C-alpha cells in the first residue's frame, strides 16, 4: 500500500525539503524527513483508483495506512517544519476519506473532477419531471405512513438506495456523465428522505 502511495505522490525528480537530496517518496530516503504534501486528487492521495465503485474495507485500509504514515502523532518529536507538513498531510487524508466514504459525496466529487458539478440539491431545482414526480411520491409516502409501518418504508427506501448506487456505478463505469448526474440527484433526495425517515422513527435525543 505504502509503495503505491509514494509512486503516485512524486511525479518528477524533487529535492528534499531538508537535506536537498533527490527524493522518491513523501519521506526522504536520505534524511528521513517528511516532505510537504503534493497536489493530488482524493483517490490518488489514498492510493486508490478513480472509480465510483470502491470497496469500503479497502478504503478504510488505505485511510489507516496513510494516517499511520503521516499523522502528527508520528512526528511529535520532530521540528516545527515537519510537524506542519504532517498536519497538512493528515488534514488532506481526512478530507479524502470523508469525501470518498459515503456514496453521495463520492459521486458529487467524481462529477466535479469531470468538470460537471452537480446542480442545486435542495429538491426545488429538480428539472427532470419524472424525477420530480418520483420525489413527490416518496415524500407523500413518508408523510402518510403511520409510525408502525415506518420499518417497512425504510426497507423499501434502503432497497431503492442500493439500486441507485448500482446505477451510479454502471454510469461512471460507462463514462455516462448525464446518467451519473441523474442518478446522483436521485441519490441526493433519497438520502435526504432517509435521514427524515430516521428522525421520524426515532426522535433525536437532545445532547445537553
Amino acid at each position, binding site marked *: 500500500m*505504502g509503495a503505491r502511495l509514494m509512486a503516485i505522490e512524486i511525479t518528477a525528480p524533487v529535492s528534499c525539503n531538508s537535506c536537498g537530496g533527490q527524493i522518491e517518496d513523501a*519521506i526522504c530516503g536520505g534524511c*528521513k524527513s517528511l516532505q510537504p504534501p503534493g497536489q493530488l486528487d482524493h483517490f490518488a492521495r489514498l492510493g486508490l483508483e478513480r472509480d465510483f465503485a470502491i470497496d469500503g474495507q479497502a478504503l*478504510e485500509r488505505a485511510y*489507516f495506512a496513510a*494516517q*499511520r*504514515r503521516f*499523522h*502528527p*502523532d*508520528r*512526528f*511529535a*518529536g*520532530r521540528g516545527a517544519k515537519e510537524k506542519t507538513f504532517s*498536519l497538512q498531510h*493528515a*488534514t488532506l487524508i*481526512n*478530507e479524502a*476519506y*470523508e469525501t470518498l466514504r459515503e456514496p453521495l459525496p463520492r459521486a458529487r466529487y467524481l462529477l466535479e473532477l469531470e468538470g460537471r458539478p452537480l446542480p442545486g440539491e435542495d429538491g426545488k431545482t429538480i428539472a427532470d419531471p419524472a424525477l420530480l414526480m418520483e420525489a413527490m411520491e416518496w415524500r407523500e409516502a413518508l408523510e402518510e405512513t403511520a409510525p408502525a409501518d415506518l420499518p417497512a418504508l425504510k426497507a423499501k427506501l434502503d432497497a431503492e438506495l442500493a439500486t441507485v448506487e448500482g446505477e451510479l456505478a454502471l454510469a461512471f463505469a460507462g463514462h455516462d456523465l448525464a446518467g451519473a448526474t441523474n442518478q446522483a440527484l436521485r441519490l441526493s433526495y433519497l438520502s435526504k428522505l432517509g435521514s427524515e425517515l430516521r428522525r421520524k422513527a*426515532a426522535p*433525536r*435525543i*437532545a*445532547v*445537553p
Partner: protein
Amino acid sequence: MLLDIYEPGETPLPHAGDSDRAAVGIDLGTTNSLVAVSVNGRPEILRDALGDGIVPSVVAYLEGDDEPVVGRVATRILEREPELVVASVKRLMGRGTGDVASLGGHLAQKIRDDGQGGMVRLDVGGRIVSPVEVSGEILRTLRQRAEMVLGKTVDQAVITVPAYFDDAARTATRDAARLAGIEVLRLVNEPTAAALAYGLDQAAEGLYAIYDLGGGTFDVSLLKLEKGVFQVLATGGDAALGGDDFDRALAEHLIGERGGGIAAGDVKPVLAAARRAKEALTDADATTIDLDIGGRATRHTVTRAGFNALIAPLVGRTIAAARAVLQDAGVGAGELSGVVLVGGSTRVPLVRGEVTALFGREPLSDIDPDEVVALGAALQAEALTIGSDTLLLDVVPLSLGLETMGGLIEKVIPRNTPIPVSRAQDFTTYQDGQTAMAIHVVQGEREMVDQNRSLARFVLAGIPAMVAGAARIRVTFTVDADGLLTVSAREALTGVEARVEVKPTYGLTDDEMTGMLRASLENARSDVVTRLLAEARVDGRRLILALDAALASDGELLSVGERAGIEDAKAALETAMTGDDREAVVAATEALEAAGRPFAERRMDRNIRRALSGVDVSRLESRLQAG
C-alpha cells in the same frame, strides 16, 4: 531529540529508562488528578510515600504565602476556610461568566466579573486567579511528584481531557500546562486513554463504547479499533453531570427528611455523609446515616432501592446521551464488541446495571476506574516519545460554525468530523459599500447563536467598498490533531488580503499568558522542599487554629500551669513556622499536639457528659446503637 519513524512492525525496542527525562501521562480530573508513567508498555501510577496515587484537584491560596497548596492538604483547608480554596476548577476551564450562572457551591461565590468578558476570574481570599492558573498549580504538583518518584526531569506529558471539551477548554488546558513548564505532547480524550489502558489497541478489533462517569463530568464515546488504529466515531456527554450530583440528590433527600431546612454552612457535612452512604451502598443493601447538625441529631436509613430511585433520573440522562451517540454513529447496541467503564461513579450498582442493560453485555471493569485514564495517558506518552503502532484518530466533538444574519448558525465543520481538518466557507457583504465584517465563531449543536458556546469574535476590516453581495469573504476553520481551532478570514475576489488569527473568547490573551509565565518563573523556587515546608506550615497553622478555638470555649478545664505549657509549645511552633526548616516545624507541631493531648481528652469527656445529661434511657440506648 531526533526520532526515526518506522514502518509498522519495524519499531525497534524502546530505549526508555536510559534517559534523564521522562514523559508522563496526566489525568487532570474535576475532582481528582493522577500522574502515571509507562516503561516498556507497562504503565504505573506514581504515588506518594504513603502509596496514595490521587492528588485531589483542590488548590488553597493562603494569606501571606506565595505558594498555593495543592491536594489532600488543600482539601483539609477547604473544610475550615473554603474562601481560600478552589475545587472543581475544571468546570470553569475556558468558561465565561455567562456560562457559569448555574454553577453552585463554593466556586460560584468566588467568581468575579471584571466586565471585560473573557474567561472567568476567581477571587480567592482577595487574590484574583484564573482557572488556567489554578489548573497550572495542580499540574505543577503532579509534575513535582513525577520528578520526585522518577528522579528525572519531567517536562513532557500527555494530558487527558473529556471528549466533550470544547475548543476554549482545550486551549485553557494547554495554557495551564505551559504555566507548569510542561510541553503537551498531545491532548488525548479520556475515553480513548481508557481504551488504551485496557490494551484494546493490541488485542481487539471492533466497536467499543466507553462510558465515563466521573465526579463532575460524564462522557460517552464510541471507538472503532482496527489494526492498532483508534478512531473516535462519535462522542457525547454532559459537562456538568457526575457522581457529585448523586451525592447532592441524596443530600437533598436527607435534608428534606429532617425537615426544618439547613444553614448554608452545614451543607458540606450532609454532602460528605451522602457520599459515604453512596459508597456503602455499592456493597450493602441498606445503610444508616446519622446527622448531627445545628444542634439537632437525626438518623436516616437509605436502602439501595431508595438511593436508586433518587439517582435514576441522573443515570437516565447518561443512558439517553449514550443512546444518542449510538444513533449519531448509526450503530446498534448489539454491534458493539465491548463496553469499558471509567470513573469512580461507575462503581454505583445502578449505573452498572443500566449500562449492562443498554449495551446487552457485561462491561469491562477490572482496571481501577479511577486510575484507568492516567494509565492510558502514560502509554500514549511513551508511544509518542519512542514510537508505536497505535494511532489515535479523533473527531470534532461539537459542531463549529459562524453566526449569520438573524442570529442563526452556519455550520462549517459538523461534529464527529475526523481531525485534523480544514474547511472553508464563503460569505458576502449585505450592504453597499460595506468595508468590514464581524465574524463570530460558535460551537454547539443548537440552531440559534445564543444557545451555543461563543468561542471567538473578530472583525475583518479593509474590505474594498463594493455593492452588496459582490465581496467574497472566505472563512477557514482549521482544527489540529489536539482539537484546537484556528479561524482565519480573507476577502478573495479583489485579491486584497486581510487575514486575522483568532484567540478564543474565553482563552487568555498573549499578554496575560506572558505575565503568568513570568510570575511562574519567578516562583521557580517551588521545588519539592518548599512544597513540603509549605505543607508542614499548613498543618501547624491548622493545629494552632483548632487549639485556639478549643481554649476559647473550654479553657477553664486547664490549670494555669497546664495552660502555660500549651502556650509555650504554641509559641515555639509559631517561631518555627517563620523559619525555613521543615523538620523544625514538624517537630514543633508534634510537641504542641503532645502538650494539648490531655486537654483534648478532658474536653472529650466533658462533651460526652453534656451529651448524655437530660437524655432519657430509651433515647440513650438508641443513640448508643447509632454510634
